[in-house]
């Protein structure tokens, strides 16, 4: 049983190191969003672009660009106070796939403003794509 357990941990480590779950989530969400006629070819195109982006250093087209982040923030902040609560912030990061439910985020007690939110989302997205 030792060998089986260590292979399992090895597999999990592999998944974490290469950020496979995030990549698969991204691929599945783009498939369902754009609904191309030939899903395989579309997937191949995205993966090729990703590979070229990594080689040549060109910025990879992010799924959520700036205007989307702003709209998301405004949806969570209907009264236009300019800040969102910590719970909302955590939920939003989870929805975007940028943090796992187990991850403990620092609750500084202050509310999160648009700039904080945007910076955090961008930072995490870059972290993920740097792996590819």
């Amino acid at each position: 049983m030792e060998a089986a357990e260590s292979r399992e941990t090895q597999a999990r480590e592999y998944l974490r190191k290469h950020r496979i779950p995030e990549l698969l989530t991204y691929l599945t969400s783009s498939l369902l969003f754009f609904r191309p006629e030939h899903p395989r070819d579309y997937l191949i195109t995205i993966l090729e672009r990703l590979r070229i982006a990594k080689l040549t250093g060109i910025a990879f087209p992010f799924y959520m660009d700036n205007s989307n982040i702003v709209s998301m923030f405004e949806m969570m902040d209907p009264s236009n106070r300019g800040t969102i609560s910590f719970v909302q912030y955590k939920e939003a990061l989870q929805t975007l796939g940028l943090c796992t439910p187990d991850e403990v985020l620092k609750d500084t007690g202050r509310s999160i403003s648009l700039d904080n939110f945007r910076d955090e989302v961008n930072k995490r997205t870059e972290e993920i794509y740097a792996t590819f």
Partner: protein
Amino acid sequence: MDATTAPHRIPAEMPQYGEANHIFELMQTMLEQLLIHQPEDPVSFMIKHLNRNNDNVPKIIILGPPASGKTTIAMWLCKHLNSNLLSMQNLIGRELQFMNPEMKRQYLRTKMIPSALLVRLIEDRLEEEDCIKRGWILDGIPETREQALTIQSQGIIPRHVVVLSALDTVLIERNLGKRVDPQTGEIYHTTFDWPPESDIQNRLVVPPGISEMETARKLLEYHRNIVRIIPSYPKILKVISADQPCVDVFYQALTYVQTHHRSNAPFTPRVLLCGPTGSGKSLQAALLAQKYSLVNVCCGQLLKEAVADKTQFGELIRPFFEKQMVVPDSLVVKVLTQRLDHQDSIQKGWVMHGFPRDQDQAHMLDTLGYEPNRVFFLNVPLDSIIERLTLRRTDPVTGERYHLLYKPPPTMEIQARLLQNPKDSEEQVKLKVDLFYRNSADLEQFYKQAITLNGDQDPYTVFEYVESGIINPLPKKVP
């Protein structure tokens, strides 16, 4: 986003697209391959894997005692599915000249080679182009648990495992009649499978090792090993009795390897029940709605509710009801779309009956985007329908509904005052059934993936058939 204050509204096209293109299974196989091989550069690996496009090629293992007909079945399956056959003989045959002489001598003597070498041979063979493109069928490998485990740890996983079984006495007797054609390698039998052409007949030789003692010895060995191999393939195994004509065994094996297994993909059922009046559609729909929390969309009921609620549509529909005329399609469709657009029917799925009644209505339903993903036709013979419907009675005092055969009223007093609904008279029922059968051929052609069931059984049996039709993936078409 806050899922609590504003619930997520996923557009209905997304799950439909996902189901139609089997996205879940696609991602699942890709992840499986990634985990098995764990390449350093996952992106290039995934590109290569997607380009191969071999998720659906056959990957079959056939196991069974000697004389059960494994090789015959394996060869026939190969020809039919256009795949590659791997057996101990043809794997070794290719390597025979490259093996060192000592191992060659050992092989020719005992017909066995060390497991490690066998697994390596299999691995190399499976890496070749034709196995990747057209799949593979392993005949009689693995023979021992050790081989099974080694194959598994190398990442070679079959999708279907067929185990042939028969009584030992049958097998020993059968083996005595085995004959082999030395040119093609095909196996014939003196009683069961004698070749028609006389030149093949003249060529046949008696293979070595088929005496009773030999067969009994091999059977003992087989029984010892197979018990340990079967647990390695829990959900993909099927046992077929080899004590029947070859053709029957072949067809059972063929149907099995062509079915998909139940997948974990998220699935909202959108079920359509079709059948003549009295076939049990409303009952099945009610059972389904109760068990799986689907929304029960009964066309007639919706229209009656609209009229009773005096809604905008109700006012338009009422004159048709009063004159006992059929409500026009456009109105019906409007009421239906209103119900099907509710958030709960999109999320939970629906079961519909009473609509569409002919091909035009079915077209309309499709173009609006409410395609069902499971369609059932309930077949009930006319006599049963008449029996079911004409014996219905209602008690005017309590409102209870009785059936003179299946749910008779308890006392004579009640029975005396029962009344029959004029719509349940024999002529009316015959009219309605005729109307259905006139349009059913078109409907069956339109819904090609429909499942036909025998509705002439008790309701819970029919319900079980419906359930298995919904839960199991739709059968693959034979190309």
